């Protein structure tokens, strides 16, 4: 019997444009980008030049601090653009695919016969290592570490989040192979599901994992929340997390010997004509999806969900870890005496001083308007209602603002990353940039604590 953990705090924001369970094909994109910005803790060092020919799985750059960690091209073709920002900071390496896709061929192996070092080595060489994210901090995993456990969240509770069960249809064998590989890295693999997993889901047949069931609103699907409830991170402890679709890619590496990061991505949001799923290779330009989008409203294109994703623009590229693209209207308009109007039927609020609570099933087409100006912390108890963790978020944020590293540690900074506090930011009456402040705190922790 899997144990059921029920989450009561949190919030499901009901948005327009959830994806229908239909998988569509789109033509291959004109270019693919790997963005160092997707990986926290990375100092990129380029290994290619513009104009170089690369195979799918060939390295584009490595981590300066840990040169064994490679970041490889998702497709075969020509390195068409190396984009740098201020202070020559590497922003992205773009590869334009050409002809038939050719992969760097790795040896196919029986995982059971491999040692832990073999698995680590293969993951590093093939470019699969960045699938693993370390907690605390949400940074790249360090191959030298021995994590307490590996955590996988088998459902996405974020607004308009994709149905991972559906996305993994037919990938049972690869998923199991990925799990087998992860078992070499850590003895304990935690797989958390919600109570809506179908009877013929591939999750039902997976062996070698500890399965848990989480019931409740977002952020129940966040791996950070699951870790907190299953085996919270204490000072000095390390766990790793990996996305289910990356487990599949990891499995393919051992089954077929290739780096294959094609994944099923949900195209969702109120500005999408027919929200549905697409099979897309990681890093793809989203330009081919234009025909599915109502561009008349000049929408915002987000790689990821509306709480934590990145604004990538119409011609942007899918992030490494994203399994969804949200398209919502921009909110750059003025609203006459908007704050005084309790009706505002198009807006959503958790506050009972608005009418949203009367229509719990209504789907909203929320835009990007901030709905007010930034203020100091005034209201209390708001954040706590949407954070199912034994943590005082406001006190933690204040410790970060005063750069008090000891207090940040005492108040649980090891247990949270941005996505866990994203709902706090959403509900914040004072419009405080919660996620931004938290990342500043995490960066400060990394700096102060060194490698310890």
């Amino acid at each position: 019997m899997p144990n059921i953990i029920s989450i009561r705090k949190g919030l499901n924001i009901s948005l327009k444009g959830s994806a229908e369970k239909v998988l569509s094909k789109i033509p291959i994109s004109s270019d693919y980008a790997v963005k160092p910005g997707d990986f926290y803790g990375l100092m990129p060092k380029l290994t290619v030049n513009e104009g170089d020919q690369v195979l799918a799985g060939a390295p584009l750059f490595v981590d300066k601090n840990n040169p064994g960690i490679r970041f490889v091209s998702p497709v075969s073709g020509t390195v068409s653009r190396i984009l740098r920002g201020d202070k020559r900071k590497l922003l992205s390496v773009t590869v334009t695919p050409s002809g038939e896709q050719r992969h760097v061929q790795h040896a196919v192996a029986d995982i059971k016969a491999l040692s832990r070092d073999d698995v680590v080595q293969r993951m590093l060489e093939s470019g699969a290592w960045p699938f693993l994210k370390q907690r605390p901090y949400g940074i790249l995993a360090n191959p030298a570490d021995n994590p307490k456990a590996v955590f996988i969240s088998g459902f996405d509770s974020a607004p308009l989040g994709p149905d991972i069960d559906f996305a993994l249809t037919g990938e049972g064998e690869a998923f199991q192979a990925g799990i087998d590989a992860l078992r070499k890295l850590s003895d304990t693999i935690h797989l958390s599901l919600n109570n809506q997993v179908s009877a013929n889901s591939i999750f039902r047949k997976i062996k070698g994992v500890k399965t848990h069931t989480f019931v409740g609103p977002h952020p129940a699907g966040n791996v950070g929340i699951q870790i907190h409830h299953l085996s919270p991170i204490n000072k000095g402890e390390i766990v790793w997390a990996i996305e289910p679709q990356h487990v599949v890619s990891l499995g393919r590496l051992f089954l077929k010997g290739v780096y294959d990061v094609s994944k099923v991505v949900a195209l969702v949001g109120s500005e999408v004509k027919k929200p549905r799923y697409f099979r897309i290779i990681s890093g793809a330009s989203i330009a081919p999806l234009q025909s599915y989008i109502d561009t008349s409203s000049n929408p915002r294109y987000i790689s990821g969900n509306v709480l934590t994703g990145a604004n990538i623009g119409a011609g942007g590229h899918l992030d490494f870890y994203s399994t969804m693209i949200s398209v919502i209207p921009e909110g750059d308009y003025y609203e006459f005496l908007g704050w005084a109007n309790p009706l505002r039927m198009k807006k959503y609020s958790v506050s009972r001083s608005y009418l949203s609570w009367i229509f719990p099933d209504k789907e909203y087409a929320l835009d990007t308007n901030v709905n007010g100006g930034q203020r100091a912390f005034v209201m209390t108890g708001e954040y706590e209602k949407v954070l199912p963790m034994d943590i005082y978020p406001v006190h933690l944020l204040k410790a970060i603002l005063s750069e008090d590293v000891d207090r940040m540690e005492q108040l649980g900074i090891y247990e949270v990353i941005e996505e866990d506090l994203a709902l706090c930011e959403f509900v914040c009456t004072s419009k405080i940039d919660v996620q931004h402040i938290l990342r500043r705190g995490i960066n400060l922790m990394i700096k102060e604590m060194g490698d310890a």
Partner: protein
Amino acid sequence: MKFLRDILDKVKPAFEKDGKLKMFHATFEAFESFLFVPNSTTKKGVHVRDANDLKHVMTVVIVALLPTLLFGMWNVGYQHALATGGAAAFGEMLWFGFLKVLPLIVVSYVVGLGIEFIAAQLRGHEVNEGFLVTGMLIPLIMPVDCPLWIVGLATAFAVIIGKEVFGGTGMNIFNPALLARAFVFFAYPSQISGTKVWVSGLGSGEGVIDGFSGATPLAYAGAGEFSQIPSFSDLFFGFIPGSIGETSTLAILLGAAILIYTGIGSWKVMLACTAGAVGTGLLCNAVAVNAYMELPVYYHLVLGGFAFGAVFMATDPVSGAQTEAGKWIYGFLIGVLAIVIRVFNPGYPEGMMLAILFMNAFAPLIDYYIVGANIKRRLKRAKLSKEEKK
């Protein structure tokens, strides 16, 4: 509203960085964002935001204050009519009270907002909405005949010493409105205590009928004249002399309902505060050695500023306890202290104001221990985990 927007867009450049009127940037911003919710969009972090903002929250609190304000205006007229022996119609009494109360409100807002605007300009911040509520609270807890210059001075004291020196709304330690009242209480005691100030016109004595006393029920209680205390229903409905907004428990309960329903005022603080007062009152009854200690508990809840303080002052999220567990302790102790001060200290007939200010000072300490317990839990967990490994 397009013409209004057009006008704003036209004059806006003058107030920006390189404009001629940039010294009034905060002022312009305050008016602009008052008229129009800004067109700013999310830049980092979440892409969508809740519709709620601080302006809206403050508006709801003002709405919650309206019943006490309207009743207070009527009661000013009613008490004046009683004092002068003349019967007056409902409308006349309301109008009389309106004319008496309006100047207090205007002075409070003009002085307070003026300082807020200047402070925001000096700091380069946006003007904060906090004073919208404070500016309404201050007149409601003043006697109707309080001289306007004292109200102005008290407001300035509260905003500058109570709030701006700490960094503005959200940073203050004490509830600014109560600080204004405390200022008057200690600096000009004759203007806020005694029997002459609570009913309009009593101080000048013009036309007052013989034998009319303007003493508040709380003053009677403090003086030990319990036979003079009006009936419970009069106290509950508020047909008594007192500060403008605090007399009617019924009107305050209407406001409380709005605050609790919208979740803006903490029901935990209100309930804990009442529980503290009832508990202390019952304890007094049980060991009573004088008449004040024998006063039935339910009288304490409708006397003086208790109800108003519990609903509108103790629930201030900034100066109160900020943890949910802390709110219970904070509210409870306010209730306890308010009754203790009332019953055992004849020098201060009204205990609520001092009880809340006192607990404002202790709220961070309460939170410190609540958060400390969280830290201890985390350390204990870490220790257990280490032992398991061994």
